[in-house]
Each structure stands twice: as C-alpha cells, then as structure tokens.
C-alpha cells in the first residue's frame, strides 16, 4: 500500500513539476516569440547570384531555400570552394568538396556573341536569367558585358553556336599581384 502511495506521490510530484515548468515555458514561448527564419536570406547573400542553375535549382534564391532545408551545400559551381566554406561556416557544418557532377572551373567568364553568325532568333534572350542580352527578332544580338554573370545558360539554346564564353581579361585594375605570371622580356 505504501509503495503505491509513494509511487503516486512520485508521479504526482513529477507530473505537477512538469506542469509548472510547462506553463512557464509556454508563457516564455509566447513572450519571446521570434518571427521567421532569415537563414535562407543569409544563404542567398553568400551565393554568387549568377542564377546559372547548375545546382539544379532555377536560380540562387531557390537553392538558398533548399540549403536552408537541408540540401547539400556543395552544389554551387560558380561560387566554388569559397562559397562552400562560407555556407559551412554559416550553418556550422563541415566543409565539403565541390559536387563531382559540377565543373570546378569557376574562373570568371563573360558571354560573347559572334555577331556575324547571329541570326537573331532571340532564344538566348529568353534563356538569360539577368536580361543581359540586347536584341530583337531577326536583329543581331549583343551581350551587355557588365551585366553578364557568366552563367553560360545562353550557350546551349543558340541554334547556330554563336555564343562563346570568354574569360574576363586581366587588367592592371583587377590584377592580383601574381608576380610569377608576369611576362618577362627575354633579351639575348
């Protein structure tokens, strides 16, 4: 009998304690309620915004949302390892190598239309995620180089293969102090 009573007391005590604490927590959760989760926004800010879709998502924002929901962090090819590292830092997870399915080549490029070959089909215009191609039907198109993100989404749709990706040229303004690559004039 006393066993039952003491058990009951134990249950009662634990139960009431749980109730009290539960009430406190419930009150606190209302009081300290936080709106929304800015994680996807923060992730989006880390992505290179090329909108290239190489991650399998239609643009950087969707990929950011997917990462926030547990998608692998190593699918951004244009961002390369730097971006993976930043995402890993943000999420507090281990850095992973770039997904093997993606090209590791993330040298900055810009699209260029070989204009004599362009037939004015507008297909590239429809493909460009940032409206960086200028032109209209049957008119020669051209690329606004400053707006181009180098995503190469316009290359495939072109029926006449007149779009090429060219690496951004090195100028004294964007030179990175790579002394080993200075062309030294050899005198005889």
């Amino acid at each position: 009998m006393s066993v039952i009573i003491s058990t009951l007391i134990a249950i009662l005590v634990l139960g009431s304690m749980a109730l009290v604490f539960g009430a406190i927590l419930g009150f606190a959760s209302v009081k300290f309620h936080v709106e929304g989760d800015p994680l996807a926004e923060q992730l989006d800010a880390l992505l290179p915004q090329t909108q290239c879709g190489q991650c399998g998502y239609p643009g950087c924002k969707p990929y950011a949302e997917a990462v926030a929901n547990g998608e692998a962090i190593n699918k951004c090819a244009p961002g390369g390892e730097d971006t993976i590292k930043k995402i890993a830092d943000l999420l507090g997870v281990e850095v992973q190598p770039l997904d093997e399915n993606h090209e590791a080549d993330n040298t900055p490029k810009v699209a260029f239309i070989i204009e004599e070959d362009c037939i004015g089909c507008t297909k590239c215009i429809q493909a460009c995620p940032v409206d960086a191609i200028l032109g209209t039907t049957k008119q020669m198109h051209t690329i606004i180089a400053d707006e181009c993100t180098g995503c190469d989404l316009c290359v495939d749709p072109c029926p006449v293969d007149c779009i090429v990706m060219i690496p951004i040229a090195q100028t004294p303004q964007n030179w990175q102090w790579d002394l080993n690559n200075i062309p030294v004039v050899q005198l005889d």
Partner: protein
Amino acid sequence: MAFWIASSPHNHMQSETSAIMRLVIYAALPGILAQWYFFGWGNLIHISLAIITALVAEFTVLSLREKKITPQLFDGSAILTAVLIGISLPAIAPWWISVIGAAFAIIIVKQLYGGLGHNPFNPAMAAYVMLLISFPLQMTSWQPPLELMALPLSFLDTLSVIISGFTIDGYSVEQLRMHVDGFTMATPLDTVKTNLTLGLTVNESMENPVIGNNFGIGWEWINAGFLLGGLFLLAKKAINWATPFSFLTSLFVCSLVAFLLSQDSNASTMFHWFNGACMLGAFFILTDPVSGATSIKGRLIFGALAGFLVFIIRKYGGYPDAVAFSVLLCNMAAPLIDQYTRPRTYGHNITNNAPKNTGNE
C-alpha cells in the same frame, strides 16, 4: 638574360631569425656558467643530452613532413628549447628525463602545431611541466650547492649518476642530496615553503644553510647570471622590454604587498626575484615571442599576469616554483589578450583631433 621581378621593398635589413636565436643562446651563458660553478656538471650534461634529442626529434619530424630540413633544423629554435630544458632540470636527474622532455617539447608541443611560429605553448616549459607532473620524484631531486654537499661530485660522478643513478663510488641520488649535516636538501623556495607549513617563520627559514648569506647559495648567482644575459639581450634589442619589465614589477609588487602585510609568512621581494627560475623566466622564456602576446600593451598584461601567477602559486600552490606553470597559463591567455589589446591603427578612433571628422566608415 632576363629581368628580375620582385616585390617591394627591394632592400632588407639583412637580419635573420636564426641570428636572434643564437644571440639568446649566447646570452644564457652567464647563467649556465653560474649553474656549473655552484651545482656542477649536471646541467651541462642535461643540456647536451637535450640538444641531441631535440635535433634528432626535429630532424625526424621534418623529414616525415617533407619540409626543408637544414634551414629549420639549424634555425636555433630547437637548440634554444633544449638549452632551456637542460637549464631547468635538477642537475642529477636521470638522463631519460631530459631525453623525454626534449622529445616531448619538440615533437608534441612544437612540431605537431606546425613547427616554429605556430606553437601556442612554450615547448621548454610545457615539457618541464609534463615532466614535473609525470615524474615528481626525479624532478624534485635537487642537489645542494657543491659547497654544502657531503660528498664530492666530479664530472664523472655526475655523468654516472645521470646515467645509472649512482656515482662511481656507488652513492645514490638520495645520498648525494644529503647535506653536510645529514639533512636532505631542497631548493631555497622549497625550504621556505616547507618550513612555513611546519610553523616556522620566514626569518627562521632564512637561517637554513641552503639560503646562505643572501637569498640562496648559488641560486642568487644563477639568477644574476640570467639577469645579466637578459640585460644584454635588451641592449641588443633581441627581446622586447615590456614582458620582463612587467613580470618583474608585478612579482615585486605582489611580494612587497604580501611582505608588508606579514613579514613572518612572506619572503622578501628580492628573495622572489633571485630564486627559482625567476630571471630565466623573465628574460628567456616569457619573452618567447611565438607563444607570448603581441602588442606592447598585451605584453605588459602578459608579464603582469605571469608575475601575479608566479607569486600566487609560490605562496599558496602545491608546487614550490611556479614559473613554468605561469608561463603555460599565460600562453593560454595570450591569444585572448591579443584580441583585446590591439593597438589603435592610424586614423581609427581618433579622439584628440579632427574637428571635422567626417569619417564615413
């Protein structure tokens, strides 16, 4: 014929890291000589043992890591570490003490972190602490100064003791530690501490023969030797003044306050300065730039903290001398100190001028 491409500046002061290390080693010589004069050949033997071990260990790791061996092996840092270990060991400790210590210092404390420049702890002191905790008996078997020893101790005797534990005549370490009067000897710091627990005042402890006329036979001269070496380094600008200055000041102030509060239970300031590894620590160990703080302000804090810790541990702690522990504890704190003591960069947080400060940052 080609053109040379190089980054500015194109001229250089032509100083080298290894030169600094060599200078520090030379500066340790007066102290080592004093040690030899008062305590015999023991430390010299340990120094040699430690140097050999350290070089072998360094060579092994460097070749395993496929690094450039010659420049790093002979940059003097390994030798300096070994010298410091050799100096700080009891003269008649067994040979394997210095071997284990040097190997531990080089392999674990230094090379596992990436070698010179990367180690957060002072290798010599970390090794000393490891030895002290692991082998307390051997590490506290201090011999009395030669003049107080009951038994003569020649070079061969010392060598024999270090290798086999017995002198050529068959005396053990314990017997060697006997005083002329038949007491087992300790260091002056030990003596004072033990006597305090026995209820003796510090003044009564000062009567102890091991203390001699001033602060401890031999010890005072060894510390004076290191002080001399340290001043030489300061003059040569091989070390920064901030750490030793604040360390010694801090220790001085702490001990002075304690001494003034209670003369019976506290040793004098100079007793603290000229005993144990005080001067060695001040000028040769705390000044190790790799594991110390960076800025002047940081170094002042670093040294002051070390001085405080030395005093606290000497006074209240379980170990007689505290320099090694304090150094390690300060090493731990150094990165944190650095983070909060960065000097104000030119043009930032200006307070005293710029009425039209339109800073847009």
